[in-house]
């Protein structure tokens, strides 16, 4: 009787200890793995090529078209010279790939190496392992992106010969943060697939399928769906606007679209609204003329998009967490 009562009491109090016991051991081990691994070498080369290519393209454009501009530096990230896309466009495509390459084998890799049951037999909870792996990937991604960011600013300093203005730097910092959080969504997504699929290759394919879907098909689908949901019958302006609204609302389910909107507002101070004003969000230059907005206003403009990205990351991580807690860990 008393033993039973004690157990009930223990049950009410839940598990012993902190769910984060061992978290930092996992984070440090995983980060060390990332930073010394081959995939990091490949990423570095990719990053370097991208940065140099994009800066070169932007630089030639800047020399040709622009004289004095307080936000000259931001142009480095947004100008493009056909056929090379601007650096921000490139990031919209590349960051998901980097993120996916970091976590697509997070959990199933432990299964296939047969290390999972040995690690979970140590005095830690699954919570610490999963979150530790996510944090390590997140920090690694942040590190990689910060390096590229510094690289471009360095190249820009050399090429343009002028340092960025104070507000310019603030905007560049927000840009970096947003890019890191954009990557977070894809980290969490690939991690969920690494829990769902036992084969790392399958998880990678599934992640890439989602990436491709949002990169190419979702915009097309959003247009088609908007046409069905809110058709333009008489060609009235209200109808056209209503349809565009629906289309944008749908397009916002894509993290790439959200990222594009954020970039548009942050890197182009002249942008005074996102959404309707920006059907091509990844090419923000020269959309609406006028005096530049202060950063706080620009931020306010895309605050929902920003929180949307973070919320998506948290939701995906929570999904992975639930799936992982229920998973049988035997090899």
């Amino acid at each position, binding site marked *: 009787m008393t033993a039973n009562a004690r*157990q009930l009491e*223990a*049950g009410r109090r839940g*598990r*012993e*200890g902190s769910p984060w*016991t*061992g978290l930092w*051991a*996992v984070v*440090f*081990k995983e980060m060390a*793995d990332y930073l010394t*691994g081959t995939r990091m070498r490949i990423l570095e080369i990719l990053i370097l090529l991208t940065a140099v290519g994009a800066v070169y393209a932007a630089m030639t454009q800047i020399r040709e078209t622009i004289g004095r501009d307080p936000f000259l530096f931001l142009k480095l990230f947004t100008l493009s010279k056909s056929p090379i896309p601007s650096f921000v466009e490139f990031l919209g495509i590349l960051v998901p790939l980097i993120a996916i390459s970091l976590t697509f084998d997070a959990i199933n890799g432990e299964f296939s*190496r*047969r*290390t999972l*049951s*040995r*690690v*979970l*037999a*140590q*005095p*830690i*909870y699954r919570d610490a392992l999963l979150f530790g792996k996510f944090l390590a990937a997140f920090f690694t991604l942040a590190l990689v992106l910060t390096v590229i960011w510094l690289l471009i600013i360095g190249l820009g300093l050399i090429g343009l010969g002028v340092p960025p203005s104070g507000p310019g730097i603030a905007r560049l910092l927000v840009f970096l943060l947003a890019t890191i959080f954009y990557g977070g969504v894809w980290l969490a997504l690939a991690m969920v697939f690494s829990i769902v699929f036992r084969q790392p290759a399958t998880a990678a394919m599934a992640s890439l399928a989602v990436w491709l879907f949002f990169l190419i098909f979702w915009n097309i689908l959003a247009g088609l769906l908007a046409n069905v949901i809110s058709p333009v019958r008489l060609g009235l302006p209200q109808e056209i606007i209503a349809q565009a609204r629906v289309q944008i609302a749908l397009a916002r389910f894509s993290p790439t679209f959200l990222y594009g909107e954020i970039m548009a507002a942050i890197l182009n101070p002249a942008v005074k609204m996102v959404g309707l004003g920006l059907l091509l969000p990844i090419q923000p230059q020269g959309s609406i003329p006028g005096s530049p907005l202060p950063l706080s206003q620009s931020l306010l403009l895309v605050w929902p998009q920003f929180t949307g990205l973070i919320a998506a990351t948290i939701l995906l991580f929570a999904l992975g967490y639930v799936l992982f807690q229920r998973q*049988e*860990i*035997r*090899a």
Partner: protein
Amino acid sequence: MSKNVIETQDLTKRYNGVTAVDNLNLTIQEGEIFGMLGPNGSGKTTTILMLLGLTEPTAGQVRVLGLDPARQPLSVKARVGYIPDQVGFYDDLTAVENLMYTAKLNGIPRKEALARIDDALDRMGLSEVKDRAVKTYSRGMKQRLAVADVLIKQPHMVIMDEPTQGLDPEGAHEFLKIIRDLKDENITVLLASHLLHQVQSVCDRVGLFNQGRMAISGTVEELAQKYMKGGYRIELEAIGDREAIEKALKEVEGVTDVAYLGRDRYEVRAKGDLRAEAARAVVLAGGGLLGLHVEAPSLDDIYVRFFQEVKHDSQRQAA
């Protein structure tokens, strides 16, 4: 009396309809080597996972070192080492790096950890290769590394799933010796295996598993007495009068059968290890003893015999 390290009461695990472990009542005492033996799919691994809190029981009670693994998994896992079936390591890391990760997960400070790692690798004979990537290790070396890995936390108990699987006979034999060494350090060992014959010699007690149930348990001798009516096989070589020797052997207490194999060889079936008695009988009958060899009853035989009887019984009941 010694303390119970593991106690389960009607422990049950069902996977959507399939009963993997069925009302298991298992008691393991401090300092013993207990073998959970049975064919694949008999519920051994599932039992182990429940003991470590790695999977939730459907019903029943578990106590490991007096703790409830479902509520106090950290305390249990800090005190119990687990070597899973076909244990794996991070291939690109060295042995030391792999063990350092384990040490950190156990919250052992770096300096202390380095000392323990050195000691453990030394004892497992891996000092020479400790800075080599684990991918260069053989299966046997990995298995020894796995023992070093659990020694890091200075466990009260070690649980091993299929410890000799994938090892060659010599490697398996060496590994059994390592298990015995653990016992000498007063570490309780629970091992699960489907290679009954291979591990029976190392176990103080065994439990035979079949379809999620532990049908019988005890020392190998006890089981042999009960289910094989002895089952020891003594082979001896002796010169002298064949009839006199055979007669003398048959009269030894505990001998159930004597057969002449030819070329001065005799096979004696007995209830126990009666080598001394048999030798005396041969000499007293005027024979000259040339050689003597005993085979303990095989758990495989006991297993087959027992479950055949169970099957016959249930068929009889069904009929």
